[in-house]
């Protein structure tokens, strides 16, 4: 008992020290939380690998899917400065559009699907990408012209999210759909890890697309203009950058990445009309953890959140794993609102 009191006392002094540090020396506190969080995540990863490597692998697979969504979300936020609550449902739409376009038959090597799936992914990317541009013109563009605040944008996106889900529900109904039925055996890897060829496809596709996004953002004229506009809209306009053009590209990229993420999620599990909405919290947690507006951040955040969620299922009921994303989100907002890679304000 006495020991417990002593420990509580110590914990309190540690906490007050931190609070004081934050008030007296915000720069030091910032550096400390920055380094501290990296150390914490590193330690957690080592711990997770030792506890259950299989769960880490599943975490990486889901993390890939979340990353593709979160990068789009963070780009849209960086450039248009609003939280797109429809991003999860854009993913879902992509999954269903690919389902619609998917002609089954044949398979590539050990994968459960054939070239029909590649085609279906392309169809989904193009339709969600172009669809996002059209919706921007119809919904967000008029709001921008009117100078609406961020809340109006967020609510509008929530309305769109509900609309998308209702439309898919009307067309396909609530029952789950699967791209390819049948049993697809997993491969046994060293250290007792099991992975399906389809899951390797998920990770490989994500790696390829993220590399493509980086090339775009750091090597192309329009990508640099996207980063510039996310830094400073007014200065971008002053430099002669056309914001409408940058916004169009942002939707095209964010939308098509969301579509792929949706299809990959469908391959990993199944398709349901609420598959996207239920991913919204991990998406936002990943984005905020990494620092809103930062693509590196979205990627890191997606991995941290997804691995943490997966590993947590060793102790808690998988039904509660979303709570892990939520707790991470709140902790990050309390300690370091700008996230791991976010800009100082």
């Amino acid at each position, binding site marked *: 008992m006495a020991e417990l009191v002593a420990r509580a006392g110590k914990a309190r002094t540690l906490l007050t020290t931190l609070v004081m540090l934050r008030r007296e020396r915000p720069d030091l506190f910032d550096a400390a939380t920055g380094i501290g969080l990296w150390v914490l995540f590193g330690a957690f990863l080592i711990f997770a690998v030792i506890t259950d490597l299989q769960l880490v692998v599943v975490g990486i697979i889901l993390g890939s899917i979340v990353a593709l969504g979160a990068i789009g979300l963070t780009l849209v936020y960086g450039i248009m400065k609003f939280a797109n609550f429809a991003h999860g449902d854009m993913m879902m739409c992509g999954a269903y559009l690919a389902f619609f376009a998917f002609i089954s038959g044949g398979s590539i090597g050990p994968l459960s699907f054939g070239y029909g799936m590649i085609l279906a992914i392309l169809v989904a990317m193009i339709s969600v990408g172009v669809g996002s541009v059209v919706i921007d013109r119809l919904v967000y563009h008029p709001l921008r012209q009117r100078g609406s605040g961020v809340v109006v944008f967020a609510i509008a996106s929530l309305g769109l999210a509900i609309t998308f889900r209702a439309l898919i529900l009307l067309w396909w109904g609530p029952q789950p759909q699967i791209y390819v039925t049948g049993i697809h055996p997993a491969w046994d890897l060293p250290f007792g890890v099991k992975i399906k060829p389809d899951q390797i496809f998920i990770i490989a596709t994500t790696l390829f697309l993220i590399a493509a996004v980086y090339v775009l953002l750091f090597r192309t004229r329009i990508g640099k203009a996207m*980063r510039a506009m996310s*830094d400073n809209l*007014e*200065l971008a306009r*002053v*430099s*002669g*950058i*056309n914001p409408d053009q940058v916004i169009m590209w942002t939707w095209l990229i964010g939308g098509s990445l969301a579509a792929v993420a949706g299809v990959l999620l469908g391959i990993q599990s199944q398709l349901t009309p609420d598959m996207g909405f239920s991913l919204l919290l991990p998406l936002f947690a990943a984005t905020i953890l990494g620092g809103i507006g930062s693509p590196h951040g979205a990627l890191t955040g997606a991995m941290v959140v997804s691995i943490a969620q997966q590993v947590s299922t060793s102790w808690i009921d998988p039904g509660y794993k979303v709570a892990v994303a939520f707790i991470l989100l709140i902790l990050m907002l309390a300690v370091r609102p700008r996230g791991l890679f976010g800009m100082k304000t």
Partner: protein
Amino acid sequence: MTMLEAREVVSGYGEVEILHGVSIKVEEEQIVTIIGPNGAGKSTLLKTVFGLLPCRRGRVLFGGEDVTGQSPQTMVRKGMCYVPQSENVFPTLTVQENLEMGAFIRRDNYRPKMEEVLALFPDVMERRHTRAGKLSGGQRQMLALARALMLEPRVLLLDEPSASLAPNMVELVFAKISDIRRSGVAIVMVEQNARESLKLSNRGYVLAMGENRLEGTGESLLDSEEVGRLYLGG
């Protein structure tokens, strides 16, 4: 020839009218300085001329052409560049990327121009792969100038280029501005360092409460009793 002229410009934000009919005029290869107390509307004037704010009444003429109400993109295409008072670089972009953004609308090869501009600012050139957010205040101001030069403008609008710089940097910035004018660019700048800026200016304007208060050659304003009393500290 008159390069840029604002005639009786009226402008403001929302319901509030800030400029109640302000006129300025810049001849080719001239430096014109606008001084005036805080809140006089100096920045508002530059923004209105550049098309960032709607011009409610009056005209803006650029090279004899009426450009009233044109967008900043059009102004940039016509050869007018603007350096805002603050936040005038892209902090997460490297120095070189900042210059590339300055050249965004150029479809030709802007590399030679970039080297030429960087050569003007050796300090900044050394750090061409550094993120602009990491530069010192003076270096940022240099980069902001360099960005605006990438399009080889005919007119440059500068909003307080020497604000919050150390005295030796102020001198350097003004020296660069003189160099830029010598290369054939007309310059309109808003300044708090009234004495130094008027010295190198062909003309000066004093703005107060959204109206023209005084105008004249740089020297005549420096000698004027009113300017001396109000802006030169005695």
